[in-house]
Protein backbone atom coordinates (compact mmCIF):
# COMPACT_ATOMS: atom_id res chain seq x y z
CA UNK A 1 0.00 0.00 0.00
CA UNK A 2 1.44 3.35 -1.02
CA UNK A 3 1.82 5.74 1.82
CA UNK A 4 0.82 9.05 0.34
CA UNK A 5 1.79 12.40 1.79
CA UNK A 6 -0.10 14.03 4.64
CA UNK A 7 -1.86 16.64 2.58
CA UNK A 8 -4.17 19.14 4.26
CA UNK A 9 -7.05 17.55 2.39
CA UNK A 10 -6.24 14.14 3.80
CA UNK A 11 -5.87 15.46 7.34
CA UNK A 12 -9.18 17.29 7.09
CA UNK A 13 -10.98 14.27 5.64
CA UNK A 14 -9.63 11.92 8.28
CA UNK A 15 -10.56 14.42 11.01
CA UNK A 16 -14.09 14.59 9.65
CA UNK A 17 -14.26 10.82 9.48
CA UNK A 18 -13.04 10.57 13.07
CA UNK A 19 -15.78 12.97 14.18
CA UNK A 20 -18.36 10.96 12.26
CA UNK A 21 -17.14 7.66 13.75
CA UNK A 22 -17.27 9.14 17.27
CA UNK A 23 -20.79 10.46 16.71
CA UNK A 24 -22.01 7.10 15.42
CA UNK A 25 -20.31 5.34 18.32
CA UNK A 26 -21.97 7.65 20.81
CA UNK A 27 -25.41 7.32 19.22
CA UNK A 28 -25.07 3.56 19.44
CA UNK A 29 -23.87 3.81 23.05
CA UNK A 30 -27.13 5.61 23.93
CA UNK A 31 -29.35 2.96 22.38
CA UNK A 32 -30.18 -0.02 24.58
CA UNK A 33 -29.25 -3.28 22.85
CA UNK A 34 -31.45 -5.63 24.84
CA UNK A 35 -28.85 -8.36 24.42
CA UNK A 36 -28.56 -10.84 27.30
CA UNK A 37 -24.79 -10.76 27.03
CA UNK A 38 -22.78 -7.54 27.22
CA UNK A 39 -20.61 -6.59 24.31
CA UNK A 40 -23.09 -7.26 21.52
CA UNK A 41 -23.53 -4.15 19.43
CA UNK A 42 -23.98 -3.16 15.83
CA UNK A 43 -20.65 -1.38 15.45
CA UNK A 44 -21.89 1.56 13.37
CA UNK A 45 -18.47 3.21 13.32
CA UNK A 46 -17.29 0.22 11.32
CA UNK A 47 -19.06 1.87 8.36
CA UNK A 48 -16.54 4.73 8.59
CA UNK A 49 -13.61 2.31 8.86
CA UNK A 50 -14.78 0.43 5.77
CA UNK A 51 -15.35 3.56 3.68
CA UNK A 52 -11.86 4.79 4.60
CA UNK A 53 -10.36 1.40 3.87
CA UNK A 54 -11.83 1.31 0.36
CA UNK A 55 -11.51 5.01 -0.48
CA UNK A 56 -8.24 6.07 1.16
CA UNK A 57 -6.29 3.16 2.55
CA UNK A 58 -5.19 1.07 5.47
CA UNK A 59 -3.31 3.75 7.38
CA UNK A 60 -6.20 6.18 7.48
CA UNK A 61 -8.67 3.49 8.50
CA UNK A 62 -6.34 2.22 11.21
CA UNK A 63 -5.53 5.69 12.58
CA UNK A 64 -9.16 6.80 12.66
CA UNK A 65 -10.28 3.55 14.27
CA UNK A 66 -7.59 3.60 16.97
CA UNK A 67 -8.28 7.27 17.77
CA UNK A 68 -12.03 6.62 17.82
CA UNK A 69 -11.60 3.82 20.38
CA UNK A 70 -9.24 5.86 22.55
CA UNK A 71 -11.43 8.98 22.47
CA UNK A 72 -14.77 7.24 22.99
CA UNK A 73 -13.46 5.29 25.97
CA UNK A 74 -11.83 8.39 27.44
CA UNK A 75 -15.22 10.13 27.15
CA UNK A 76 -17.62 7.42 28.31
CA UNK A 77 -15.77 4.16 28.79
CA UNK A 78 -13.07 2.71 30.97
CA UNK A 79 -9.48 1.63 30.62
CA UNK A 80 -10.64 -1.95 30.31
CA UNK A 81 -13.12 -1.27 27.56
CA UNK A 82 -10.39 0.73 25.81
CA UNK A 83 -8.07 -2.28 25.81
CA UNK A 84 -10.93 -4.45 24.57
CA UNK A 85 -11.80 -2.01 21.85
CA UNK A 86 -8.21 -1.56 20.71
CA UNK A 87 -7.49 -5.26 20.43
CA UNK A 88 -10.70 -5.89 18.51
CA UNK A 89 -10.51 -2.73 16.40
CA UNK A 90 -6.92 -3.12 15.24
CA UNK A 91 -7.33 -6.81 14.39
CA UNK A 92 -10.56 -6.14 12.53
CA UNK A 93 -9.12 -3.33 10.39
CA UNK A 94 -6.04 -5.41 9.51
CA UNK A 95 -8.20 -8.39 8.61
CA UNK A 96 -10.60 -6.29 6.52
CA UNK A 97 -7.67 -4.58 4.76
CA UNK A 98 -6.31 -7.95 3.71
CA UNK A 99 -9.70 -9.27 2.59
CA UNK A 100 -10.71 -6.06 0.81
CA UNK A 101 -8.04 -6.78 -1.80
CA UNK A 102 -9.86 -9.93 -2.85
CA UNK A 103 -11.94 -9.23 -5.95
CA UNK A 104 -14.34 -12.04 -5.07
CA UNK A 105 -15.50 -10.21 -1.94
CA UNK A 106 -17.77 -7.22 -1.52
CA UNK A 107 -17.67 -4.98 1.58
CA UNK A 108 -20.46 -7.12 3.07
CA UNK A 109 -18.37 -10.28 3.30
CA UNK A 110 -15.28 -8.32 4.28
CA UNK A 111 -17.20 -6.66 7.10
CA UNK A 112 -18.79 -9.93 8.28
CA UNK A 113 -15.33 -11.47 8.62
CA UNK A 114 -14.11 -8.27 10.28
CA UNK A 115 -16.97 -8.44 12.80
CA UNK A 116 -16.06 -11.98 13.80
CA UNK A 117 -12.36 -11.13 14.08
CA UNK A 118 -13.21 -8.04 16.13
CA UNK A 119 -15.21 -10.09 18.62
CA UNK A 120 -12.63 -12.86 18.82
CA UNK A 121 -9.90 -10.28 19.41
CA UNK A 122 -11.87 -8.86 22.30
CA UNK A 123 -12.38 -12.34 23.74
CA UNK A 124 -8.66 -13.06 23.49
CA UNK A 125 -7.93 -9.77 25.22
CA UNK A 126 -10.40 -10.58 28.00
CA UNK A 127 -8.90 -14.05 28.46
CA UNK A 128 -5.44 -12.51 28.76
CA UNK A 129 -6.56 -9.80 31.20
CA UNK A 130 -8.41 -12.29 33.37
CA UNK A 131 -5.94 -15.11 33.08
CA UNK A 132 -8.92 -17.37 32.56
CA UNK A 133 -10.33 -19.24 29.60
CA UNK A 134 -13.86 -19.12 31.01
CA UNK A 135 -14.71 -16.20 28.71
CA UNK A 136 -14.46 -18.47 25.68
CA UNK A 137 -17.90 -19.79 26.56
CA UNK A 138 -19.09 -16.58 24.85
CA UNK A 139 -17.47 -17.57 21.55
CA UNK A 140 -20.50 -18.96 19.66
CA UNK A 141 -22.71 -15.98 20.52
CA UNK A 142 -19.99 -13.53 19.56
CA UNK A 143 -19.29 -15.32 16.26
CA UNK A 144 -22.99 -15.11 15.39
CA UNK A 145 -23.34 -11.47 16.38
CA UNK A 146 -20.10 -10.62 14.58
CA UNK A 147 -21.36 -12.11 11.32
CA UNK A 148 -24.80 -10.51 11.53
CA UNK A 149 -23.69 -7.06 12.69
CA UNK A 150 -20.69 -7.12 10.36
CA UNK A 151 -22.84 -7.94 7.35
CA UNK A 152 -25.31 -5.16 8.25
CA UNK A 153 -22.65 -2.47 8.66
CA UNK A 154 -20.96 -3.83 5.54
CA UNK A 155 -24.17 -3.38 3.57
CA UNK A 156 -24.42 0.20 4.84
CA UNK A 157 -20.79 0.85 3.87
CA UNK A 158 -21.39 -0.66 0.42
CA UNK A 159 -24.26 1.79 -0.03
CA UNK A 160 -22.07 4.72 1.02
CA UNK A 161 -19.29 3.62 -1.34
CA UNK A 162 -21.73 3.31 -4.24
CA UNK A 163 -23.07 6.78 -3.58
CA UNK A 164 -19.57 8.24 -3.33
CA UNK A 165 -18.54 6.55 -6.57
CA UNK A 166 -21.53 7.77 -8.53
CA UNK A 167 -20.98 11.34 -7.29
CA UNK A 168 -17.31 11.22 -8.25
CA UNK A 169 -18.26 9.89 -11.68
CA UNK A 170 -20.26 13.00 -12.60
Amino acid sequence: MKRSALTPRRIATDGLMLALALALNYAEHLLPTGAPIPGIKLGLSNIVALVLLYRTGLWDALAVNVLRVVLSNALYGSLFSMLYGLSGGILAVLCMAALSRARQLSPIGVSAAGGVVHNLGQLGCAALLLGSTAVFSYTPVLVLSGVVCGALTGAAAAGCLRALRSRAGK
Partner: protein
Amino acid sequence: MKRLDVIIIAVGLLLGAVWLLLPRGTGAFVCVQTQQGRNLYPLFEDAEIVLPGNLVVISGGEVRMESADCPGGDCLAHAPIRRAGESIVCLPNRVVVTVEGGKSDGPDAVTGGAA
Protein backbone atom coordinates in the same frame (compact mmCIF):
# COMPACT_ATOMS: atom_id res chain seq x y z
CA MET B 1 -23.10 -9.21 -2.62
CA LYS B 2 -20.93 -11.85 -4.23
CA ARG B 3 -20.83 -15.59 -3.87
CA LEU B 4 -17.87 -15.60 -1.49
CA ASP B 5 -19.69 -13.10 0.75
CA VAL B 6 -22.59 -15.51 1.04
CA ILE B 7 -20.19 -18.35 1.85
CA ILE B 8 -18.48 -16.36 4.60
CA ILE B 9 -21.77 -15.36 6.17
CA ALA B 10 -23.25 -18.86 5.89
CA VAL B 11 -20.17 -20.52 7.39
CA GLY B 12 -20.10 -18.02 10.25
CA LEU B 13 -23.79 -18.45 11.02
CA LEU B 14 -23.60 -22.23 10.80
CA LEU B 15 -20.49 -22.44 12.97
CA GLY B 16 -21.95 -20.17 15.64
CA ALA B 17 -25.34 -21.87 15.64
CA VAL B 18 -23.99 -25.42 15.81
CA TRP B 19 -21.57 -24.45 18.58
CA LEU B 20 -24.33 -22.69 20.46
CA LEU B 21 -26.66 -25.68 20.18
CA LEU B 22 -24.08 -28.23 21.31
CA PRO B 23 -25.51 -30.03 24.29
CA ARG B 24 -24.23 -28.74 27.56
CA GLY B 25 -24.33 -30.62 30.80
CA THR B 26 -26.38 -29.40 33.68
CA GLY B 27 -24.44 -27.44 36.24
CA ALA B 28 -23.58 -28.68 39.69
CA PHE B 29 -21.08 -26.19 41.07
CA VAL B 30 -20.40 -22.50 40.88
CA CYS B 31 -16.79 -21.47 40.55
CA VAL B 32 -16.05 -17.94 41.66
CA GLN B 33 -12.62 -16.76 40.61
CA THR B 34 -11.22 -13.53 41.99
CA GLN B 35 -7.73 -12.14 42.25
CA GLN B 36 -7.53 -13.79 45.66
CA GLY B 37 -8.20 -17.26 44.28
CA ARG B 38 -11.09 -19.49 43.32
CA ASN B 39 -13.85 -21.00 45.38
CA LEU B 40 -16.50 -23.59 44.59
CA TYR B 41 -20.09 -23.38 45.77
CA PRO B 42 -22.93 -25.85 45.23
CA LEU B 43 -25.35 -24.59 42.55
CA PHE B 44 -28.48 -25.91 44.20
CA GLU B 45 -27.95 -24.29 47.58
CA ASP B 46 -29.08 -20.68 47.69
CA ALA B 47 -26.28 -18.39 48.76
CA GLU B 48 -25.04 -14.83 48.61
CA ILE B 49 -21.35 -14.51 47.94
CA VAL B 50 -19.99 -11.16 49.03
CA LEU B 51 -16.82 -10.10 47.27
CA PRO B 52 -14.99 -6.79 47.47
CA GLY B 53 -16.93 -4.90 44.80
CA ASN B 54 -19.36 -7.62 43.71
CA LEU B 55 -22.29 -9.53 45.10
CA VAL B 56 -22.96 -12.91 43.49
CA VAL B 57 -26.30 -14.56 44.24
CA ILE B 58 -27.06 -18.26 43.80
CA SER B 59 -30.78 -18.87 43.92
CA GLY B 60 -33.05 -21.56 42.52
CA GLY B 61 -30.26 -23.27 40.63
CA GLU B 62 -29.27 -20.06 38.85
CA VAL B 63 -26.41 -17.64 39.38
CA ARG B 64 -26.54 -13.93 38.77
CA MET B 65 -24.48 -10.87 39.54
CA GLU B 66 -26.61 -8.91 41.97
CA SER B 67 -24.46 -5.82 42.32
CA ALA B 68 -21.10 -4.52 41.25
CA ASP B 69 -19.19 -1.31 41.81
CA CYS B 70 -17.58 -1.29 38.37
CA PRO B 71 -18.30 1.71 36.14
CA GLY B 72 -19.79 -0.20 33.20
CA GLY B 73 -22.08 -2.62 34.99
CA ASP B 74 -21.86 -5.04 32.06
CA CYS B 75 -21.90 -8.04 34.37
CA LEU B 76 -25.21 -6.86 35.87
CA ALA B 77 -26.77 -6.87 32.41
CA HIS B 78 -25.89 -10.52 31.93
CA ALA B 79 -28.76 -12.99 32.10
CA PRO B 80 -28.62 -15.55 34.95
CA ILE B 81 -26.58 -18.66 34.16
CA ARG B 82 -27.22 -22.29 35.09
CA ARG B 83 -25.72 -24.62 32.49
CA ALA B 84 -22.20 -26.03 32.73
CA GLY B 85 -19.67 -23.85 30.97
CA GLU B 86 -21.66 -20.61 31.14
CA SER B 87 -19.99 -17.69 32.84
CA ILE B 88 -20.46 -14.12 33.94
CA VAL B 89 -17.42 -11.90 33.86
CA CYS B 90 -16.81 -8.61 35.64
CA LEU B 91 -13.68 -7.48 33.88
CA PRO B 92 -12.84 -4.33 35.89
CA ASN B 93 -12.96 -6.28 39.16
CA ARG B 94 -11.45 -9.39 37.59
CA VAL B 95 -14.22 -11.62 38.80
CA VAL B 96 -15.20 -14.69 36.79
CA VAL B 97 -18.26 -16.69 37.83
CA THR B 98 -18.56 -20.00 36.02
CA VAL B 99 -21.04 -22.85 36.32
CA GLU B 100 -19.29 -26.19 36.36
CA GLY B 101 -20.70 -29.63 35.67
CA GLY B 102 -20.95 -32.36 38.24
CA LYS B 103 -19.30 -35.17 36.33
CA SER B 104 -15.55 -35.09 35.99
CA ASP B 105 -15.66 -35.92 32.29
CA GLY B 106 -13.24 -33.30 31.19
CA PRO B 107 -14.89 -29.84 31.17
CA ASP B 108 -13.54 -29.09 34.63
CA ALA B 109 -10.10 -28.69 33.17
CA VAL B 110 -11.32 -25.97 30.77
CA THR B 111 -11.89 -23.39 33.46
CA GLY B 112 -8.54 -24.16 35.07
CA GLY B 113 -5.61 -21.82 35.18
CA ALA B 114 -3.57 -20.59 38.06
CA ALA B 115 -5.66 -18.63 40.49
